[in-house]
């Protein structure tokens, strides 16, 4: 955890600082790769959850941090990924996790393309309400069509039935849960690293710069020839697919998918994560998601009134630390960095 915050170098960087960023990123990856040997399996599961949510927040932040659109309905894409995997496993009897991922990604691609097409017609508060309303359509369908979705009982997805890497790794026989935790951690870590690299490339590409131009001044962006609505739509789809991937990876670890992941307070949690880490930075949502996961886990374990605790943290955060963990840390680093010179 503490090591991850060191990625808070400003994103705008020259070639020299790019190498430094690369070195820091590789160091973090190595530390994360060594972790399961150092901590017990419960901690490994916690970090896996954290990494999964980090993918979701990373995708969400392409819209909030880089395009300037606050979605209050990202539970829809997380939930679509999760439910698609559950349908594939239950109804098609598929075992390969890769098949589930492909199917889930196609599912979220379709849903986010459709919802995005509708939502990008508006910005600001209307965009937020549209995304919220559409996510609630999915929630109410999952909630009411219980003969398809299991209603509030949800759908079980047993990890023991799944295989990783095209059947190379399976989880039958004794001690299978330990093996699953261990293998699945590396599986998620690999996909997390891949997702982070892809997102980094996206936000630093001309396309990503165009999104930031739209965020900062929509009129000027349109004036230099950016077709604002199409760029927003594409950003929406990418964002949804990333969040969908998180939902896909979340299901086998959780073992169950319920309408709760489609309900709007879950969207609020994704927003919370990004703000906790700091949505003005690239690494912010990653740090925020992992930190939120710990915060929620320990709050739930230590008190019945975990919502109160988490809500207080959010209120204090908004009032006192609006730039989040990473934003505040990099500001402090910049201040102390200047002192010697």
């Amino acid at each position: 955890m503490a090591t991850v915050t060191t990625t808070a170098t400003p994103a705008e960087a020259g070639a020299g600082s790019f190498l430094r960023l690369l070195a820091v990123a590789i160091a973090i990856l190595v530390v994360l790769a060594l972790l399961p040997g150092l901590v017990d399996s419960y901690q490994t599961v916690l970090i896996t959850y954290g990494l999964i949510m980090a993918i979701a927040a990373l995708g969400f932040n392409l819209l909030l941090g880089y395009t300037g659109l606050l979605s209050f309905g990202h539970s829809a894409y997380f939930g679509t990924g999760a439910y698609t995997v559950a349908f594939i496993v239950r109804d098609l009897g598929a075992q390969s996790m890769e098949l589930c991922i492909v199917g889930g990604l196609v599912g979220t691609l379709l849903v986010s393309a459709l919802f995005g097409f509708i939502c990008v017609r508006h910005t600001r508060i209307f965009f937020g309400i549209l995304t919220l309303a559409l996510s609630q359509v999915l929630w109410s369908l999952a909630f009411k069509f219980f003969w398809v979705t299991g209603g509030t009982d949800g759908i079980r997805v047993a990890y023991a039935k799944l295989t990783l890497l095209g059947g190379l790794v399976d989880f039958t026989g004794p001690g299978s849960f330990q093996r699953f935790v261990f293998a699945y951690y590396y599986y998620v870590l690999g996909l997390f690293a891949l997702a982070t690299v892809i997102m980094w490339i996206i936000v630093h590409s001309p396309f990503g710069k165009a999104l930031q131009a739209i965020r900062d001044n929509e009129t000027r962006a349109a004036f230099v020839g950016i077709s604002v609505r199409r760029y927003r739509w594409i950003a929406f789809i990418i964002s949804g697919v990333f969040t969908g991937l998180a939902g896909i990876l979340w299901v086998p670890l959780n073992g169950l998918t319920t309408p709760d992941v489609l309900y709007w307070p879950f969207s609020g949690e994704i927003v919370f994560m990004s703000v906790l880490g700091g949505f003005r930075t690239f690494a912010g949502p990653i740090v925020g998601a992992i930190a939120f996961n710990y915060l929620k886990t320990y709050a739930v374990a230590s008190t019945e009134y975990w919502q109160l605790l988490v809500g207080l943290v959010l209120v204090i955060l908004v009032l006192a630390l609006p730039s989040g963990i990473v934003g505040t840390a990099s500001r402090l680093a910049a201040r102390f960095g200047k002192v010697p010179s």
Partner: protein
Amino acid sequence: MTIFIIQVLNSLFYAAALFLIAAGLSLIYGVMRIVNLAHGTLYALGAYVSAWVVGGAVGHAMNGTLGLAGLLLLLPIGAIAIAAVGAAIEPTLLRPLYRRPEEYHLLITFGLLMIIEDAIKILFGGTPLSAGTIMDHMGSIPIGRLLYPMYNLIVVAIGLVAALGLWWFIYRTKFGVILRATSQDRRMAAALGINVGRVYVQAFAIGCFMAGLGGAVVVPAQAAVLGMGIDALVLAFVVVVIGGLGSLEGALVGALIVSLVRTAGIQFFAEIELAVLYLIATAVLLVRPTGLFGRA
């Protein structure tokens, strides 16, 4: 035919409660440009406080000393309590944020939602609270061959009175003029000598009062349960989106549409009843983003 009349009455009952919640939400947005995600939870808190007060009064009063009228007068205590909560929230938590982007407004009210949700659990416990005594005392009136609870009709009346009262308050009083002036141009209003800070506290407290009143009038008919606020908020959202954020007439028409669709939905297409509501809201947003009665 009897069934039809009863369904119409039911939907009017829902509409009255929904209007109270949505009008508060709309008023707060209209004046302060804040979408209060904690609004539904404040409605739930109002329901709990009212149920608790009425339940306590029934338990402690000697038989017969506290008539029906006394109980009815106790109900608005919930609404007044919520107005007080609102008056405390605005200067402490919301005022520092007006200059920030609206993302922060949503976030802080989302944090408030979580806090109040658990505060309800701490204060009143996990078991549902009911003020059903009032409804039982009221008796029923016959409609055709069936009996209909008198209390529901009272709620419809309260909703109507609240709508008229709010309209009069906003369009016919001096405070209403100040309120509308502040909502149209905050800086100009301040330049004309209006104490904008005080108007904001009052507007937020009135909005919260409406939410609390909504909870208070519902609780004799439906027990207060955990999570009722989160459900109510999304419905209130649908109402204000259809009617237009910040519009009082819109809240009224939106509440009528939503409750009619809900009642029809429960009768004819129960599975997709909620989905239809959200889709209507989406369609309205697409065709007229400012809602049926909203201004740009």
